[in-house]
């Protein structure tokens, strides 16, 4: 048990000690929010779809969490060979505890990043809103934020576990690059973070529905901007999104535990 805690604590300490990295990792999502948000804003509004910043904010929050959590898992490759993780492989502690603590730590850090990004969105003009019915007045819904935290944490956990699974399997840095380009970026772009998932063609519909992040983003968007803001508040629904993410988290955690236990350095 102590091992789980110290592995978790290690990730969190590292986060708080690297202020520069915290700022830098918020840079890309902020760029997306500002450039695309204000850039596409007029067209989106003209298409009758409302305020793009409102639409996009949950998307870039999800983006922040995705990148942060996957990266923490993938950084395991380095840690395995040149870092502390190697020491844990020979310690008299079950490997399950090690990977569990580390994954939870990575998920915690990603969640904190997501919250920071939420603050950035608020500064950029985003407001969580609640509308009783279509066409009714929208009121600020600050209570949405604690509920949104659930989805942020779930996304963090799912992708931290996925990242840990990947980090336990790849053997060198080339694999890392390949995965960033061919797994993480598609997951982000096809998740509805940047565009609504309604009225897409058959193939796109199928792909975006197969993307785990879609459910996370949908949950975030639904909680933060509600049902009636646009035509596309909720693509799916609260229970489906949450349930699916929880199930995926469990599966990926199991996979990462199994893969990690089989590491031979």
């Amino acid at each position, binding site marked *: 048990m102590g091992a789980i805690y110290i592995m978790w604590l290690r990730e969190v300490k*590292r986060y708080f000690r690297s202020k520069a990295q915290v700022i830098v990792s918020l840079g890309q999502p902020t760029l997306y929010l500002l450039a695309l948000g204000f850039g596409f804003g007029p067209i989106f509004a003209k298409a009758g779809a409302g305020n793009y910043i409102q639409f996009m904010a949950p998307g870039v929050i999800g983006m922040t969490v995705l990148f942060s959590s996957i990266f923490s898992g993938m950084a395991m490759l*380095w840690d395995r*060979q040149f870092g502390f993780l190697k*020491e844990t492989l020979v310690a008299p502690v079950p490997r399950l505890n090690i990977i569990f603590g580390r994954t939870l730590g990575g998920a915690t850090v990603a969640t904190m990043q997501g919250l920071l990004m939420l603050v950035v969105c608020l500064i950029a003009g985003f407001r969580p809103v609640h509308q009783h019915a279509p066409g009714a007045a929208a009121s600020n819904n600050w209570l949405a934020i604690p509920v949104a935290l659930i989805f942020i944490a779930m996304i963090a956990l799912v992708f931290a576990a996925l990242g840990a699974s990947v980090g336990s399997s790849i053997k060198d*840095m080339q694999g890392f690059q390949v995965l960033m380009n061919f797994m993480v970026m598609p997951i982000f772009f096809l998740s509805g973070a940047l565009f609504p998932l309604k009225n897409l063609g058959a193939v796109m519909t199928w792909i975006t529905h197969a993307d785990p992040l879609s459910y996370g983003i949908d949950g975030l968007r639904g909680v933060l901007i509600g049902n009636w803001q646009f035509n596309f508040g909720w693509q799916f629904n609260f229970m489906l999104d949450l349930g699916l993410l929880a199930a995926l988290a469990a599966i990926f955690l199991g996979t990462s535990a199994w893969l990690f236990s089989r590491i031979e350095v």
Partner: protein
Amino acid sequence: MIQVENLTRKFDQFTAVNDISFEVDSGEIFAFLGPNGAGKTTTIKMLTTLLRPTSGRIHLDGLDPWVKQRDARQRFGIVFQDPSLDNEQTALENMELHGILYHIPRRVRVERIEELLRLFELWERRNDYVKTFSGGMKRRLEIARGFLHTPKILFLDEPTLGLDPQSRNQLWTHVKNLNAKEKTTVFLTTHYMDEADRVAHRIAIMDHGAIVAIGTSAELKARTNTDSLEAAFLALTGTSLRDESASSTDNLRRFAQMWQQKR
């Protein structure tokens, strides 16, 4: 303390370790010498539960490390060839982490950490981040850490690679002192013949996955009719170069070196 019988490890068609057998007595300092690719690191990995043997038997302090993994791991320590410290934490925190992973009770832990950090002359820097340490200091810290849980056996995989002569000398002084005081069995691999000669009680020479000779330094020199361990080594293993291809580990190491140049 260490018994190895008919240990073999194959990677697909390639036999890295070919049916080796040897014994190491309690309190002995035992060195594994061999050219690159001889199988030394593979052997250490099998002894320390990092790599599963294809066949053969291992006993550490009477235990089979593959059957009684947790008990065996509690009894040995290892210092790897590549650093395994947490650079983003302090020396003290690194020692603490190790202590917790190895189930050392708190009071014992605190005392033992101070004792070892003072012995390895790192006490003054205990609250500094490891990333600010020189190569020699990092290695000293890793070795101090290896001794923390008073292991019966300490495995050292090329412990002084890349260190300057002062650091190397100082390191071996400390290791020999702890070996004498706590009767820790030390199993090391190295390229540095002079060190093996000076430090080890007995030496095994490994080549192409097999043990070519075992004995004290004097015995090996007598056997090959030479007067230096290096000459004996070359006589036993030949002088031709070893062609190897880069493994993924080598690639990673190159990458690491690239990053470290930046400092």
